[in-house]
């Protein structure tokens, strides 16, 4: 009987890990339906980019307040996970504070967890107020209506409760130590509890059994909350806490102005210009540009799962700022939504996608959006996790023009001019040097 809590703990832990692994695998499979693109060159530059952008948060600094708060939450999140190691050992082996033999080091560790925990709490609280009370356009935007807005709030509330549980657990523990009760009496320095020793007074004159109860329930809440958090990630924009690292590692390292070269087109153009040129046979019939998520590359799909929905892209987008329908954040969210739908379709049909009559272009993203883009790269520059919304817009335009011939009349006129007289306007090529001789 006495080991039941430990067995329950062990089963929940394993279940949590298995479920998480399955969900991550599904996301991996969804990402890999994308087309190949080589992002394995120049490894040292890639590591540097990851260190700078993901670990060093270098692109957050342009907005100092959220940057500092985010650092609290991010550093706190990572460091407090060390505490989880102890919790897991304690949970399985029925020990209490198994790492306390570390002595002074343990004091330092617990004390810093407490301070970080309080900072995480503070950070999340301010974030929560920014989202729900302050008037910040990118957080108020209709892009976030419905699930995305709730998602953000759920996570913030969960993180605040986790941190509160952690601190109140320590507070009860601290009180039990002072009372020198049973195995709680580890003789830890009060310095280990810089925050919770103050919270302990909130327990008033609680009896020993109720203090034990408080300590145990917050302990369980904390670890179950962490397992829940982990399993919530794959359904949330918070998956970025994991994908930010690979996503920045696989960043596009070329100049932002260099748009991809379509080699399938190159072959056809070469054949047109030189009749003796024999294009290499294509492995599968291809589509020019992208109509659906299958036509995008795995990196573009990984981008969609890495998006934090922060809206920095949209708040710097000239089209969006001037009231156009285009929002680069929405482009990323739409791509993820469609990819999730395609993934569920595959789940239902034994891993194979069955045509559902829908597509990314048309059902999720409209012509009005993609044609409003200035291709100015402001969104790409802003994104804190190096997402490239512009590349998706470009591929959707390619499909519209090369497969659907759906360019506007004005654009068709411009292209006809280039084709016929080598300039986007109706001038004769022989007049190209007139500027030199005219007054």
């Amino acid at each position, binding site marked *: 009987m006495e080991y039941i809590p430990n067995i329950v703990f062990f089963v929940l832990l394993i279940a949590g890990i298995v479920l998480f692994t399955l969900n991550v695998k599904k996301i991996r499979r969804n990402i890999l339906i994308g087309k190949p693109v080589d992002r394995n060159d120049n490894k040292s530059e890639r590591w540097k980019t990851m260190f700078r952008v993901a670990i060093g948060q270098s692109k957050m600094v342009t907005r100092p307040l959220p940057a500092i708060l985010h650092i609290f939450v991010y550093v706190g999140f990572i460091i407090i996970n060390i505490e989880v190691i102890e919790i897991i050992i304690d949970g399985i082996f029925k020990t209490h504070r198994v790492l306390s033999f570390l002595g002074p080091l343990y004091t330092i560790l617990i004390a810093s967890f407490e301070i970080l925990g309080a900072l995480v709490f503070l950070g999340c609280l301010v974030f929560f107020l920014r989202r729900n009370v302050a008037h910040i356009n990118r957080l108020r935007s209709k892009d976030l209506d419905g699930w995305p807005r709730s998602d953000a709030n759920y996570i913030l509330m969960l993180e605040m409760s986790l941190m509160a549980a952690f601190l109140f657990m320590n507070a009860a523990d601290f009180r039990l130590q002072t009372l020198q009760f049973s195995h709680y009496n580890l003789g830890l320095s009060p310095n280990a509890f810089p925050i919770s020793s103050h919270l302990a007074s909130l327990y008033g004159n609680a009896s020993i059994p109720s203090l034990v109860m408080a300590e145990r329930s917050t302990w369980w809440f904390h670890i179950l909350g962490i397992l829940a958090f982990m399993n919530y990630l794959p359904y949330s924009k918070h998956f970025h806490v994991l994908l930010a690292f690979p996503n920045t590692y696989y960043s596009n390292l070329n100049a932002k102005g260099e748009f991809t070269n379509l080699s399938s087109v190159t072959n056809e153009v070469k054949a047109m210009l030189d009749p003796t040129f024999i294009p290499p046979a294509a492995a599968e019939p291809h589509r020019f540009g992208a109509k659906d998520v299958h036509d995008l590359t795995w990196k573009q799909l990984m981008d969609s799962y890495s998006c934090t929905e922060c809206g920095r892209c949209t708040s710097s987008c000239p089209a969006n700022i001037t009231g156009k329908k285009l929002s680069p954040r929405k482009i990323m969210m739409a791509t993820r939504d469609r990819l999730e739908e395609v993934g569920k379709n595959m789940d239902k049909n034994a891993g194979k996608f069955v045509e559902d009559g829908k597509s990314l272009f048309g059902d999720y993203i409209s012509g009005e959006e993609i044609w409003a883009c*200035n*291709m100015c790269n402001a969104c790409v520059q802003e994104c804190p996790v190096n997402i490239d919304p512009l590349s998706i817009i470009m591929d959707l335009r390619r499909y519209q023009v090369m497969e659907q011939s759906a360019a506007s009349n004005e654009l068709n006129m411009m292209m006809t001019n280039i084709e016929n007289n080598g300039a*986007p306007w109706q001038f004769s090529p022989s007049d190209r040097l007139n500027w030199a001789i005219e*007054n």
Partner: protein
Amino acid sequence: MSNEPIHVPTMAELTAKGEVPEILFWVGCAGSFDDRAKKITKAIVRILDHVGMKFAVLGAEEGCTGDAAKRAGNEFLFQMQAMNNITVLNGYEVKKIVTGCPHCFNTLKNEYPALGGNYEVVHHTQLIQGLLDAGKIKLQDGANKGKKITFHDPCYLGRANEEYDAPRSVLEKLNAELAEMERSRENGFCCGAGGAQMFKEAEKGEKEVNVERTEQALELNPDVIATGCPFCMTMMTDGVKHFNKEEKTKVLDVAELIASQIHK
């Protein structure tokens, strides 16, 4: 001054004489045909002549780089243009190119190599910076002294190719007051012409992008909005007209500012 006819050598002419220019000046479609941009083209030529740099243009053999076609989604047309241009450029064994337009600059520099066109490509503000640093351009002081100038970063020079300093370092030589807009350099704000928008009506919205950008510039109440792109030139000029500020605020290319101050 800038409207006098000038003699501009073509590659065909030089080759016939057995001569090789130091640099090819890629004029671009706007620089060749747009009345306002032609003045920028002439300013660049004046600077090249002033320093005695031997250059040539392609003239009738130059064709649109295909930038707008590519960004409108027509990769076929882009590659047709690119391959035709590459055939011409490689035929003349061109090594170094200066462009008067960030779009031509970006396309030639970044997108032609994959199709067999490998050249050293510089934007005219980079070339001018080099010439100034080498002490080759003698500037008369005066004309712009004490004036307030703000530089509008063209997206395809700035973010697309991370060149923010060359135009500014050139402008510093004018002894003017350089003022920065709130959105500048990495955070620069598009003029509204990029991504083939130059050639179409904007989508439905509350405002034109160029009006928004010009408003940002006019907040500084500058004497000059300087830029380095013929499309930004059109957009910002229209924007200044929209606010009836053309008396106070001129829109000028970096090349024009320098050309107006070189010793005869």
